């Protein structure tokens, strides 16, 4: 099971949800615009530091399985479909659709780079999932947006319930002696098809129950008021600044070619002090956030201004 948000006493959770989303967005942005794998590693490390500062490092790390699956797929698919690169490491037979198989070292490296990029994005998403209260994100939406956000939140919340219902349904059928896992994949699928109807009907019953409960509590009466009104504080300003610097570092690095990394036709990278400095920037900033978070935990003065 993927771990979900839990309330903890940490600075990241005390920030305005928009601030944390901006911070996450800046990390995703720099990860998407740069090709440099070392910079991707720096982004992942910075995200890990932020997760540690929020006290969710173990849960954050458990997303490695998703990263690994996506990464391995990228690592396999790219060399098979890419014909670029000058260092051929294997020539294979001709296969339908793909033609002659030629695996180059550069294509493998590009696959690895893409895998790192995807891992960085997934881990930033993991951080947001673990550290930002979904109800507070819901609170950011107003007007028509709030209905859509509520619908999305309810749908997401129903996912684990539906998974649990489906698992109970499968267990009930197995307990009757119905073999649901035997035979070919097609046989397995066929034996499970009748359960889809039941599963859908259970989900529908739950949805109707929820709709009844919502209507009974006045949902749709008119303009809604809001219980939580989060205000931006001193720490939000600091976190916005961190997000802005990270984005600026990435954009400037790419524009100036300092963070340049070329995969084709041969692997090439610009070395030098500016490149190292830019790569260290996300780490230093995340470290700063970690220190600030520790101070926040101990300082009433800072907490009251957060």
């Amino acid at each position, binding site marked *: 099971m993927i771990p979900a948000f839990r309330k903890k006493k940490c600075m990241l959770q005390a920030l305005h949800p928009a601030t944390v989303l901006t911070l996450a967005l800046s990390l995703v942005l720099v990860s998407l615009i740069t090709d440099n794998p070392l910079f991707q590693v720096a982004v992942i490390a910075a995200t890990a530091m932020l997760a540690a500062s929020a006290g969710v490092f173990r849960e954050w790390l458990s997303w490695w399985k998703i990263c690994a699956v996506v990464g391995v797929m990228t690592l396999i698919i790219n060399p098979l479909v890419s014909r670029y690169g000058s260092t051929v490491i294997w020539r294979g037979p001709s296969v339908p659709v793909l033609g002659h198989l030629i695996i180059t070292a550069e294509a493998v490296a590009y696959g690895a780079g893409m895998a790192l990029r995807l891992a960085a994005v997934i881990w930033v998403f993991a951080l947001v999932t673990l550290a930002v*209260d979904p109800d507070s994100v819901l609170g950011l939406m107003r007007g028509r947006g709030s209905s859509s956000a509520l619908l999305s939140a309810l749908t997401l919340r129903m996912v684990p319930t539906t998974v649990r219902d489906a698992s109970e349904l499968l*267990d009930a059928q197995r307990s009757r002696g*119905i073999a649901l896992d035997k035979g070919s994949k097609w046989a397995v699928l066929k034996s499970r098809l009748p359960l889809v109807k039941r599963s859908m009907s259970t989900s529908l019953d739950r949805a109707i129950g929820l709709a009844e409960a919502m209507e009974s509590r006045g949902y749709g009466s008119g303009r*809604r*008021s809001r219980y939580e009104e989060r205000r931006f504080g001193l720490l939000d300003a600091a976190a916005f600044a961190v997000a802005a610097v990270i984005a600026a570092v990435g954009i400037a690095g790419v524009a100036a070619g300092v963070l340049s990394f070329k995969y084709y036709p041969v692997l090439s990278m610009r070395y030098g002090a500016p490149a190292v400095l830019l790569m260290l920037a996300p780490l230093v900033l995340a470290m700063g956030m970690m220190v600030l978070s520790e101070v926040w935990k101990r300082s009433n003065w800072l907490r009251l201004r957060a």
Partner: protein
Amino acid sequence: MEEIELVEIEGLSYTYPGRREPALRDVSMSLTPGEFVLLVGASGSGKSTLCRALNGLVPHFYGGRIGGSVRVAGVDTATTEVRDLARTVGMVFQDPENQMVTDSPVSEIAFGLENIGLERLQMRKRVEEVMASLRLSQLRDKRISELSGGQKQKVALASVLAMHPSVLVLDEPTSQLDPISAEDFLSQVKSLNDELGLVVVLAEHRVERCFHFADRVVVLDGGRAVFAGSPEEMARWSRGHDWAPLPPVTRLFLAGSENGVPLTVKQGRARVAALAARKGTGDAGVPPALHGRSASRSISVAPDRPDDLASRGSCPREAEARLGASRRNDVVGTMDQRQKRKMQNKGSCPICCIETRDLWHVYDDGTEALRGVDLSIAQGEFVAVIGENGSGKTTLVRHFNGLLRPSKGKVLVRGADIKDAEVASLAAGCGMLGQNPNNQLVADTVVSELAATLAAVGAPAAERERMIEETLELLQIAPFRDSDPQDLSCGERERVALASVLVHKPPVLVLDEPTRGIDHATKDRLAAYLREYNALGNTVILVTHDLEFAAECCQRVLLMGSGRILADGDKHAVLTDSLFFTTQYNKCFRGVADGVVTRSEASSALEAMS
């Protein structure tokens, strides 16, 4: 002075869309401020529909045809939207899982207030107030998904109360909760009724928890209100209506009691004490059944176990084995855990069908659900597994057919370790019915539901038709043979689900909470089927919170707590030794008559005293 009526229901009839039979027929009643009304009746009698008519969900949400009127605080619910009635009528539903909109208790409570556009300051005041009054403040930082069923239901109650309704409607709110949570929840509701003067309309099956709270009991049958009166009047009325639900203690004193009947255990105990005192001092000849105890007079009541076993007609070897197991377990119940393990590990049970050795189960989140359970169950035993929620009951029985695998230790079925056996292959030997019977029902007709099980366990083709017919007859579901199981009532679905497991006659039958949410009559029928099935020499294992049901059906009781077996033995030994995990009968006769746990034993004890 004439009381003002807050709710007026006049000639209310209602038919759901697509249905021919009305769910409510000509129901009339009025409710005054501060009244606590208990709605009782069999499944499908119209309780939930009447609850939904009070806040306008019927007809606004469901459609259908409505006749008559419901007026709440002078407003006709048929012409007023549900959301506009939300400030006057608050409703708590059956399943806490289906009524949570957000993922934090605070925002859940605030949800309704946001909907009606309340100012933030007022919202904050109301949220804090209800959280404090329902003792929810310590849950403030938890996620809804981390709460227990009872806590979720309290949050649902708080979210309704925050809207300051005048009428609180609760549709079987405790049916998904364990007895302790249910008791706690209903006590909160009663104190709200007492202190705030809220009108409470409560629909319930398990009346023993709330019968004495009610100012008025309304009995529904086939959509009609067939009785309305005080609990005492209802008890008297039920003399000619055996199906009417009553608390066990009330039912016990009903026969022959011309005056008032006790509604609570406390009143029952007082009645028993009075009878015992009269017998002890007034009568010259003290019956042999009465004998002195150290501090008080005590009556010995012959337990109904040996008679039960003899009358079941099972083979003598099995009956003896059962008695042997019971006797052995009488002792086991009083031994310490180490001695118990030693004895059970010696393989002293010659016809053991299920055995666990140092069974541990740790879930992925680190929860130690079972901690070194040693257990052996002989063929032909009828065992109840009891204990609070989270004590490991369900986890334990899910090991018997391989749905869960031990984290450590062994599970032996007929002496063979089932470590590598598939669930489907174990099903022929161990049938299991889970908590939700709906999960069992996937076919289009009742007959094909049963046929699917027979095909799965590889029953001989020539025998299948006969086996299906026998099961349909046994569970009295033959009239629904061609019906879609989903179209049947709750009690009927329960029986079809049971039939889908029983049809191939597994020698071991495991039922997890089979009485949850079912009415009194269905429960009695279920008890009869299970006794009959056990009498054929089959093993029945029951996981239940319903201690009266367990005592009536079973011989052996396992009390679990924190993943361990706390007591294991004959039902009399275990239930009489427990203060809380025992029946109302035992609580009534404690200190006066030994070993009373079932209704027949309680009746015998009463007879001996009168």
